[in-house]
Every structure is written in structure tokens, then in C-alpha cells.
């Protein structure tokens, strides 16, 4: 096997190189030659091609994502902002929390189980890298129609993969989403979130500081997994991919990761590292260039000593391999033995592969020859940046103009009742326990709220009542109608969900799932969504701490619905004060908070009953969201609320059904005066919640709402032993019938 060395590259400047096949544009290849003053070696080309891929360089999204920083609200809640592996939030009392969401969409289509499993594995390592103990995961999932044949292949595999990996790591799964829409059939979305907890003085950063310090690769051996994945996988649709470019699948080893987590936590506790980085997309290329670029600036690496699973791997392949369950640490020579001892205790393979230098160069050798000699910043941070053309889709005005106001609506109690039963059984609104029962939500013993509650909530530690709440939300249909509003609606819903548990929303993460950035219409959707999110975060005072962009989500030339998925994290001082969703106190009054308008564009009703998408999504009112949140949080803190549940997709009717079924309690409802019953029940107006208040607290609660100026309509009472949900003057439906409809849908499809 011939090795392409730096010396050879100097001597053979005209040798042709497969830059195009590696996904590099001609200009980008020229730029690399300029940086190096010669042609790159094949190993250098491998590094640049993966580091400059869309997936790693954010070259199409960077100019937009800047707004998250530029428009960031003033806050002292952020300990580490954007740009690190994950942002870190101050949770009070010396506790810090780090969280992030990431996509694994394409791999989950190719091999659902492993694709989803390694998605969880990757995000957990990101959180671990910050110095935190990972304490919970969430998953946001989107598939094709429930009845589409391929959904029966993809969904069970994805769910088993997320469960298989997360359960085996001992991380409770505390929430997520499952949506169905035809646009995701050939391109499911699998977004995984992880949250970690640490003390504020335990934060670790990804940098290689201190000349003479050792670079240690530890964890799994390197194999041929996903070679070219980072670049090829993320920058071409499958239709374009030549067979040779098809990604090979990465297989996860959750046991290896569990051991790696415990090993790292012991290493952190003993303060044995200067810097640390996980190996994810772009593997060693990414870890070495990023660590070096963020630190003293140089690194020497001996690729010969990298422990291999497949001894035939060439250096280019070693550099591009995406083998899972690997980490890289920078360790002082004095601490090296201690470090290696901890690894040995956990049976984790650890190898010194290099040294930090102050040369400003990343140098790698192979069989004694220099095969890489580059300035690391040029690969890690100074990649190409594109301002791609954007263009409002030609049919956007038409989509918004045809608002569906003439769609026939149900009239009379009987039709309303039928509509309700049909909606609660529809795939997007139906019970998701077929999925969530495959996830461990109890492990670690700190889970206070999990599915199907509005947000997941965990206690930070045995020593404190303090906790955090998290929700992830997105709505591709709203975003299609108006991506600016769609991003804000997702943000608002996640924010509302967190507040509905009694926690104070503090910070935001996001995963932006879009089609091809080379399509100006998609790029317009993306730009609008980012602008909407940045503006929304500023107004709500919740900064974006990090996230992930996934482009090229399309089948042929048809893109998925633009799908920004937003995660909001909140803090609660005492988890015992959490507000659950269930109706549970007999005789308690039920209130609807907020205003209801006639808003059905993009609604579940329009989709399920009419298969219709058009109009403008529900109005966004972030000031009202803040007001609603403040009332929920304060009332929760003062113990005024027995339950709270946000109103979103499916409207008031769906919220009432969920609260009643969750508590196995009946309720008698009188719809607010002056509202059409159909609008009252099914409109998806935002900034609303359903709460229940027991008699002794009613006066205080009503006064709180009046003082703050939050509309609060008393719409009924809970009848704990009542067998049904009664809508006065309209219809009565037995809980048993509702439950059968709501619970039956997914099992009927998947067994």
C-alpha cells in the first residue's frame, strides 16, 4: 500500500485527487491548496473533506445562526454559551445543567435500530464531554403516515434502538414527540436530546492546552464504521449517492458507552484532564483539529498506535472513521498514570497517540512518514461560509390565502362527539405509550415527571429538592404555513409545557431539520425559522445555548415539512411543588386560561378530517405566553393548582381528554359563553392552559389571574368517580370509550 506523504505532495503537485467524490467543491479544493501552499495529501484531503462538510462546518447555516448570539437576551443563566459541545445553564445553588439536541435522520432510515441507537450514543457523549453526568434523554421522532408500509419498518426499529441504547446506559427517557406526516416517509426525523448535571466548578472544555501534554484516545477501537459518513451521509441525498458512496452503517455498543461514562466521571472527579472531546461525526479528524485549534494550537499525532478493530484500515480511513464510543483527552504527563489506571479499572482501552505542541500545526505520522501537516484552525473553524440564495416559495402566498375557512365543520352535539373520538384516535393525538413503554423512565430515581406529562422533570440530586424540566416541540405543518411563526410556535409550546409543570423556563436548544440548502425555497424556510427563533428567544428571555442543523432531508426533490424542533429547559426550586397533568381532586374547579379564537389553519382537525393544509398558523403572542407562564409558575409555587395541562394540538377537547384519562376522573364542562362550541373545543389558539383548582384555593387563584390580567374562564368541575366527560348541552362521552379510542391506534398498527 502506498502512502501519500507530505513530501510526495510537494513533489507531485499535479496529481489528480478525488476531491469531488469526497464532496468538496472545486473552489473548496482550491482553497485547501492555497492554505497549504501545495496539494493536500490524501489524509489531509480526508480531514478537510469531512471538516468542511455541511454537517461539520455549518457552511450554509452559519450566517443565519449568528443571530442566536447577536439577538441573545441578557441573562446570567448561561455559564457556557454557543460554540462548545453543549451550552451550560446555571441551575442555582452551584448546580449546572447542560443539554443539547441532535439529529440522526439519515442513518435511522437506512438501519432504524442502529441509526437511532447511535444517535442517542452521540448526544450522550456530547453532554459527557462538558464534564457532566448524563441524567436523562428525550427523543423527538417523525415518520411517514402511520398506515404507510415503510413506517412499520422504520418506527419499531427506531423506537427499539432509542430504548435499547438509552435503557442500557441507565438514562431515564423523560419525554419526546412522535408525529406522522407523509413528507417524512422516505426521510424520518430522529432527534435525540440529552441533559447532564454537574457542579459549576466541574465544567470541562474541548481544548488541547499546554505543550508537552499528552493526547489520549480512549474507548472503543477504531473500525471502518461510517467511513465518509459525516461528509457523504450529510451532504447528498440517497438518490444521488452512487453505491460506493452509500454509508456503511455504524453499530452502537451501549455497554461500552456505559463503561466509558463511568470511567470519564471518575476521571473528572479526580481532575485528571486538561481538555476533553468526544469523537462523533468526522471522528479523529474532528477531535484532533478542534482540540488543537481551541488550545495552544499544535499537536503531533502518531496514527500507527491508534488501536484498530480492522487492521487493514488506511490512514485516511482511520481519520474518517465514525466508530462509536470513543473519546479523546488531553492529560498532563504527571497525571497520565492516574488517568490510565482509571481506564484500566473500567477495562477501557486507552492509548497515548500524541502530544500538544506550540507549533501551530497539526502533524500526523504513519509508518514514520509525515502524512498530515496543517494549521488546525483552517480545518476546524475557518472552513467555507456560504450565503446561499433564498427565495420565498412561489406558492407560499397561495398556501396562506387558502385558509380552509370554508371547510365543513361539525354541528350539533352528535357530530362534535364523533369528531372528538376521531381526533383522539388520530395518529398524532393518540396515546404514545406503545412507544414510551419501551423506555425506562425510573432509573436513577430522580424522575419526577415523564411521559405523558407536559414536560419531563428530574431532581438534580439526592441532596437537593431542586429540579429541571424539559420539553421538546415542533410542528412541521405550522412551519410550512409560516416558518417564522412556526419556529416561534414550537418555542412557545415548549416554553408553555415547561411552565405548566411549575418550572421557570431558562434556556433553549434546537434542531433544525430542513431540505436541501441548495434549494432557495428551502433556504428561505430555514432563514425564516432561524430569524423567528432568534426573535422569539430574545422576547422570552431564553437564550439559545446550542443545537444542530440537519439539511438535505428530502426524498428526490421533495423536501420534508420544514421542521424546527425546539427544546426548552426550566428550573424548579422544589420538585415536590411540580404540577401534574391529571385531574385528581374531586370537586375541583376547571379553568381555561387564555383566549380562544377561531384558528384552524394547520390544525389537527383540518389535517385529520379534511387532509387540508393552508392558511396562517395560530397567532403567536409571546407576551401572553410569558404572562401565562408567570401565573402557572407562581400558582404552582403557592400550591394553588392541582393540575395544569397546556392546550395545543387538538385544542381544548384534547387537553380535557388527556387530563381526565390521566387521572381516570370524569369532568363536567360548560363551554365559555359566546364561543361557537366547535371553535371552543378544537381551535388551536396558543397561550392557553387548562388547570384545576380545589375549592379552598379558588378565590386566591381567581384573584391572581385578575391581578395579572390573564383571562381565566371557569369551565367546569372534576368528578373523580364520574365515568364520563360531559360537555354541557353538547354531548357526553364515556372515559372508557375515549380511552379505547385514544389507546388503540398504535397497538392496532404495530401489535
Amino acid at each position, binding site marked *: 500500500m502506498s502512502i501519500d506523504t507530505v513530501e510526495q505532495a510537494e513533489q507531485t503537485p499535479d496529481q489528480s485527487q478525488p476531491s469531488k467524490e469526497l464532496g468538496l467543491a472545486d473552489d473548496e479544493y482550491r482553497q485547501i491548496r492555497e492554505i497549504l501552499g501545495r496539494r493536500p495529501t490524501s489524509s489531509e484531503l480526508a480531514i478537510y473533506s469531512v471538516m468542511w462538510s455541511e454537517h461539520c462546518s455549518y457552511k450554509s447555516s452559519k450566517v443565519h445562526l449568528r443571530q442566536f448570539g447577536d439577538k441573545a437576551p441578557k441573562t446570567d443563566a448561561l455559564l457556557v454559551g454557543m460554540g462548545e459541545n453543549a451550552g451550560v445553564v446555571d441551575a442555582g445553588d452551584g448546580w449546572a445543567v447542560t443539554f443539547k439536541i441532535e439529529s440522526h435522520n439519515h442513518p435511522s432510515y437506512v438501519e432504524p435500530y442502529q441509526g437511532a441507537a447511535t444517535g442517542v450514543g452521540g448526544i450522550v457523549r456530547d453532554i459527557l464531554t462538558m464534564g457532566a453526568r448524563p441524567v436523562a434523554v428525550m427523543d423527538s421522532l417523525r415518520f411517514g403516515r402511520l398506515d404507510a408500509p415503510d413506517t412499520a419498518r422504520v418506527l419499531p426499529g427506531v423506537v*427499539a434502538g432509542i430504548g*435499547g441504547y438509552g435503557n442500557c446506559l441507565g438514562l431515564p427517557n423523560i419525554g419526546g414527540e412522535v408525529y406522522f406526516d407523509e413528507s417524512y416517509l422516505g426521510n424520518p426525523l430522529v432527534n435525540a436530546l440529552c441533559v447532564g448535571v454537574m457542579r459549576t466548578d466541574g465544567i470541562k472544555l474541548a481544548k488541547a492546552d499546554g505543550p508537552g501534554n499528552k493526547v489520549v484516545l480512549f474507548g472503543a477501537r477504531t473500525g471502518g464504521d461510517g467511513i465518509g459518513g459525516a461528509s457523504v451521509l450529510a451532504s447528498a441525498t440517497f438518490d444521488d449517492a452512487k453505491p460506493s458512496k452509500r454509508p456503511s452503517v455504524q453499530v452502537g455498543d451501549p*455497554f461500552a458507552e456505559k463503561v466509558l461514562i463511568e470511567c470519564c466521571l471518575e476521571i473528572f472527579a479526580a481532575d485528571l484532564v486538561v481538555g476533553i472531546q468526544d469523537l462523533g461525526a468526522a471522528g479523529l479528524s474532528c477531535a484532533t483539529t478542534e482540540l488543537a485549534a481551541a488550545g495552544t494550537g499544535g499537536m503531533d499525532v502518531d496514527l500507527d498506535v491508534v488501536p484498530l478493530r480492522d487492521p487493514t484500515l488506511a490512514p485516511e480511513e482511520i481519520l474518517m472513521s465514525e466508530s462509536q464510543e470513543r473519546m479523546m483527552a488531553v492529560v498532563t504527563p504527571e497525571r497520565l498514570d492516574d488517568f490510565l489506571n482509571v481506564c484500566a479499572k473500567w477495562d477501557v482501552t486507552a492509548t497515548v497517540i500524541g502530544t500538544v505542541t506550540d507549533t501551530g500545526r497539526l502533524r500526523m505520522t504513519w509508518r514514520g512518514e509525515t502524512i498530515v501537516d496543517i494549521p488546525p484552525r483552517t480545518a476546524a473553524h475557518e472552513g467555507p461560509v456560504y450565503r446561499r440564495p433564498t427565495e420565498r416559495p412561489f406558492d407560499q402566498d397561495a398556501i396562506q390565502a387558502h385558509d380552509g375557512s370554508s371547510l365543513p365543520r361539525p354541528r350539533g352535539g352528535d357530530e362534535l362527539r364523533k369528531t372528538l373520538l376521531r381526533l383522539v384516535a388520530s395518529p398524532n393525538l393518540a396515546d404514545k405509550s406503545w412507544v414510551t413503554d419501551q423506555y425506562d423512565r425510573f*432509573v436513577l*430515581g430522580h*424522575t419526577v415527571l415523564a411521559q405523558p406529562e407536559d414536560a419531563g422533570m428530574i431532581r438534580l440530586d439526592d441532596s437537593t429538592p431542586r429540579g429541571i424540566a424539559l420539553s421538546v416541540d415542533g410542528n412541521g405543518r405550522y412551519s410550512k404555513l409560516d416558518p417564522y411563526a412556526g419556529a416561534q410556535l414550537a418555542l412557545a409550546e415548549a416554553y408553555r409545557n415547561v411552565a405548566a409543570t411549575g418550572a421557570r423556563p431558562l434556556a433553549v436548544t434546537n434542531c433544525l431539520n430542513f431540505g436541501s440548502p441548495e434549494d432557495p425555497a428551502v433556504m428561505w424556510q430555514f432563514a425564516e425559522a432561524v430569524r423567528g427563533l432568534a426573535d422569539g428567544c430574545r422576547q422570552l428571555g431564553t437564550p439559545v445555548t446550542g443545537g444542530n442543523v440537519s439539511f438535505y432531508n428530502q426524498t428526490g426533490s421533495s423536501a420534508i415539512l420544514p421542521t424546527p424542533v425546539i427544546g426548552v429547559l426550566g428550573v424548579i426550586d422544589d420538585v415536590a411543588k411540580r404540577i401534574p397533568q391529571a385531574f385528581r381532586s374531586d370537586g375541583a374547579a376547571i379553568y381555561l386560561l387564555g383566549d380562544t379564537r377561531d384558528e384552524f389553519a394547520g390544525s389537527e382537525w383540518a389535517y385529520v378530517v379534511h387532509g387540508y393544509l393552508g392558511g396562517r398558523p395560530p397567532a403567536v403572542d409571546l407576551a401572553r405566553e410569558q404572562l401565562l407562564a408567570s401565573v402557572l409558575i407562581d400558582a404552582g409555587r403557592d400550591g394553588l393548582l392541582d393540575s395544569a395541562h397546556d392546550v395545543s394540538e387538538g385544542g381544548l377537547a384534547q387537553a380535557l381528554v388527556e387530563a381526565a384519562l390521566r387521572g381516570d376522573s370524569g369532568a363536567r364542562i360548560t363551554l365559555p359563553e359566546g364561543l361557537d362550541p366547535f371553535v371552543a373545543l378544537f381551535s388551536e389558539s396558543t397561550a392557553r392552559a387548562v388547570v384545576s383548582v380545589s375549592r379552598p384555593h379558588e378565590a386566591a387563584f381567581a384573584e391572581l389571574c385578575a391581578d395579572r390580567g390573564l383571562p381565566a374562564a371557569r369551565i367546569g368541575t372534576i368528578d373523580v368517580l364520574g365515568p364520563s366527560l360531559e360537555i354541557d348541552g353538547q354531548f357526553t362521552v364515556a372515559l372508557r370509550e375515549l380511552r379505547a379510542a385514544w389507546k388503540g391506534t398504535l397497538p392496532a398498527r404495530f401489535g
Partner: protein
Amino acid sequence: MVTFPGSLDDRDAARAVRAAGGEPVALWHADPSLHDVDAVILPGGFSYGDYLRAGAIARFAPVMESLVSAARDGLPVLGICNGFQVLCESHLLPGALVGNAGRKFVCRPQSLRVENVKTSWTSGYRAGQEIVVPIKNMDGMYVADDRTLDKLEADARIVARYRLGNPNGSYRDIAGITNKAGNVVGLMPHPEHAIDPLTGTGADGLGFFLSLTGVAA
């Protein structure tokens, strides 16, 4: 409290022991010493990733050799979920645990009937008492041949059975069994996740730990 590589519910079980007034002591799989403890809990999780068969590899850990002989001498041992699997693989308990009949991981609150209240771990319950604790497993179907099952029933060695639905296809609805002496108990459901209504399904599981500390006290 034994920690194997891949143990997950070890902290939870330690918390439960503490809640019952006991003092949890960490034992390490590679250390054969039992450090003079009064009882041992093998916690839930995926020791060695549950690779090969759940519990199959953990069985060969150095600590297990000491544990097997101490258990034969009467040391109270509770194996929860993965711990139950390890006890079967080590032949301290008869039968085996294989993949759930539903072929999926199952996590949900589960109703049980406690049948044998003479073991070291169940003396705090009333015979026939119905309790709810979480179940969460992939390989939770208890299987054994008919002779073994008949014998278990005849000797009243079935500690608990599932009620209101069998979550994993276990033969004869078996959720937990004990050895002849009643000191070794294997349990598929997770009582350590039912010691505090705030974070678990209730407090019904505390009885397993109270049974022990009551005895030890």
C-alpha cells in the same frame, strides 16, 4: 450492593436500603471480598450489556464466587431484574429468564401479589398482599420445565406473581422466586423504584428492604 460493569439501578437500590434504615455498602465485581456485609443486593441493569444472555457473563465475576458460597450458607441475597438473571445463571435459583413474549422492552407500573412472606426479603408483607411496583425489562420471561414449576409451587417458593396482566409471558405469572432456605430471592419487578411516590410508582416496594432491615436489626 454489587456493581458490575453495566449495572444501572445500583444507586437506586442503595437509596432504598437507606430509606429502610440500612447502610448500603458498595461491592465491586472484581473484588472477591464481601466486606462482612449482612446481606447482598444484585441490582438491575444490563451487566456486560446483557450480551450473550442477560446475566451470563456477570456470573463469572470474582465477587460471584464468594457470593454463591455465602448464599449457600444463608446470607440474604436479593437479585432484582438483572440480578435475578444473574442468580439463575449462577444456579442459585432454578429456571431462566428469556426475552419477553412481546419481544419489546416493557416499562410500566405492575400489580403483584406477594405469596410467600417467609423469606428474608418479604417478611414485611401480608400473605396475598397486592402491591404496585414498576416492571422494566427486556428479558423478563421466567421459564422452567414443568417439573421445576410444579416443585416451586408445591414448596411455596413463588414469592410474587403478576396480576392484572402478565407483562412478559412468564410461566405461571411468576414475578419472583426464592431458594429452599428463603434467603435468596430473585425478583423481576423493581421495588427500589417504588419507595417514594414523588419519583416512583408509590411506596409499595419499601417492604422488601424493611423486611431485611427488620430482620437484621
